[in-house]
């Protein structure tokens, strides 16, 4: 079937492009793309819940932080090596998402926004409260010696890029597959009309909870990757700002599209990066661009492209 082959080609093409970029981009942009890929994992996790399931969370930073601290604290306090520390980060984010989902999914709409927001604030304050271990807002460094995997030093620019690339590829392809599967279709059905999905016999509560957990684990993977690749763990990543970022990225790139989150992160990163090169008032430029974008690309970049003729975009 043509329709399903095109998206696959696009996904593989994007991965190939990211691979090529490493060899052609100047050093600074290679570093920037390592970061962009990590943040894109976060955005993809958010997109599953928001873009596909229709649940707007304002507290995803808690899952990002769960991954980040799950990784950073286990390496620093227990001396775990990278793989088990990464696994415990995913576990931490997954369990938190399960608990939060169990409670917060009793609500919907704006109440869901606020409940997730407040749970995330609670997590943020807990990080500060246990400052003895977390060093609160100041955070701590994950030392170079702890960022080694099978003899490879992950702190070099090359290893960092490829670690980010591999993590991103796995998440990207898994997410593309996931939303194609019946599970993904059911999530979309919930987004479009929850009552109808329920009448069709879907276990809506269970589906939402699963979406929440998967979304949380993706966010946790991103947080753990950030700690692993950039060597820093800090409470600012658990703040409200980092809950709003993935929402912004997904809306800019295109909610409910597979490539939108990546596009959104790239767009926002370079919007700030380039405009800060022109002027000190770069936030002003960024603000104006955001307003213009909502006026002229209402469905986000990918969503608008899809509407304007490239209908097959995944």
């Amino acid at each position: 079937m043509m329709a399903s082959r095109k998206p696959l080609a696009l996904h593989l093409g994007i991965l190939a492009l990211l691979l090529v970029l490493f060899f052609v981009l100047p050093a600074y942009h290679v570093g920037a793309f390592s970061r962009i890929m990590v943040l894109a994992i976060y955005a993809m996790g958010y997109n599953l819940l928001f873009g596909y399931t229709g649940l707007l969370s304002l507290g995803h930073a808690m899952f990002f932080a769960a991954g980040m601290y799950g990784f950073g604290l286990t390496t620093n306090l227990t001396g775990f090596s990278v793989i088990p520390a990464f696994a415990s980060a995913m576990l931490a984010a997954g369990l938190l998402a399960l608990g939060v989902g169990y409670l917060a999914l009793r609500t919907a709409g704006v109440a869901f926004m606020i409940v997730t927001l407040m749970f995330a604030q609670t997590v943020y304050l807990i990080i500060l409260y246990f400052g003895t271990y977390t060093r609160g807002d100041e955070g701590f460094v994950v030392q170079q010696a702890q960022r080694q995997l099978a003899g490879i030093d992950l702190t070099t620019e090359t290893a960092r890029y490829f670690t980010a690339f591999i993590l991103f590829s796995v998440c990207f392809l898994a997410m593309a597959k996931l939303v194609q599967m019946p599970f993904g279709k059911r999530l979309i059905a919930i987004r479009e009309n929850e009552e109808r999905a329920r009448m069709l016999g879907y276990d809506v509560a269970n589906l939402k909870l699963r979406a929440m957990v998967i979304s949380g684990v993706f966010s946790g993977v991103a947080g753990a990757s950030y700690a692993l690749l950039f060597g820093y763990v800090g409470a600012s990543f658990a703040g409200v700002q980092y809950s709003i970022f993935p929402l912004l990225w997904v809306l800019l790139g295109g909610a409910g599209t597979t490539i939108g989150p990546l596009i959104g992160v790239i767009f926002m990163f370079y919007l700030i990066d380039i405009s800060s090169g022109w002027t000190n008032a770069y936030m002003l430029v960024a603000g104006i661009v955001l307003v213009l974008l909502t006026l002229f690309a209402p469905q986000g970049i990918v969503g608008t492209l899809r509407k304007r003729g490239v209908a097959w975009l995944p």
Partner: protein
Amino acid sequence: MTQPTKKPTKMNRRKALIGLGASTGALAAGGAFPGAERFAHAQSAAPIKIGFQKHATGIGAAYGRWYGATTDAAVKRINENGGINGRPVEIVVEDDATDPGRGAEVLEKFATQHEVDVAFGTLFSHVVIGSAPRAGELKLPYFVVSEGHHVASGMLNRYTLQPCITDVKSQVISMAPFVAENLGKKVTMIYPDFAFGHDHRDFFSEAIEAQGGEVVAKIAIPPTETTFTRYFPNIPRETEVIYHVMVGPAVLTFVKELGEFFGPNRPELFGFIDSLEAVDIQSPGLEFLEGSYFWEGMPRHAQAGDTEAQKAYRAAVGCNERGASVEDPANVSTYAHMFGCWETLNVIKAGMEAADYQGPADRPKLIEAVEAMSAIPASEDHPQGDKLFNGKTHQVFAQQHISKVTDGTLVVEHSTSIEDGMYEDEVDYTTQTF
């Protein structure tokens, strides 16, 4: 950013002082000019690029603006005196939004896009800690002006140095004797529930106990708090001294509410001026601070005993005798901290000249040259005063001041000795490889 406007009279005086040998480091390497190397000529003409990580937006913006002004003034002076190794200095400014994530990105930008020689200028600890790992990986010397204990604690790496501002541990330790002897032995501490506040809590509790005093209550205030009165009843009645180190925009409220809580009879107050940097001490609501004591890294208000170097520095950064902008007296500076930018640039200059720094390949040599520094005497380069740099811990130690608010003016009551703030080394960065 740096457009030196020529003011002949000032320049002449400064040149004369430099001629007298104010810059000791410059003498050490003065004669060594690169002759043999192939690109020596081209290199010697190109500017030395220093990346300035500035808190231009975000919560640190008030500090960032004055760190910027001080940096501009220091660079202007260095360039008027012939630059570094005969090369002009160029500052490349990037805004880190007072955010550790963006801070690390900015540092990458310095290293790989602007290709600066060194990075410098960060104040907020979380930005330093978020950025330092990248500095180490990119092998970019990173000179911070942060007063955090992060450098000396051993958490960071060989590429990160704090050569001109004393860290919080040393500051706090050196305050304890004065507090215990003059203000009281029963202390209640009020601090933000941040790592910065915890440092104060831990280091001061230990230091005051060594003086025979005790901390009778520790009140950690959660961040983003905008009202404080409900926490004050936790202050025990027996308290003789309140030690406060609040930071952030709500600080004025904090002090005001503290005054309203106690009314006419309050215990002694001792605070860190960090609370009131960039705030006029005579602001409405702060009358309560009259007669209270403050730590100051460098006295904001001009003192009777100011040295010529201190006067010259004050004029150069454009501050009046109350530490506010000469052009706009309502614009109060961050005087107790920003001298660190001025002095750090002079350390970079001295280090580069001692190491005969030619380009990025000489970065390890530059760090070794700075590590080799020990006593840094007071001079026009170092107006804050004498300093002792510890090459192993990458941390400097200097004299601290305690000022009393007297008729709305901060008058220095006591100055500590460098030894008051010394503590055992917690790390030896020189054992790390480059």
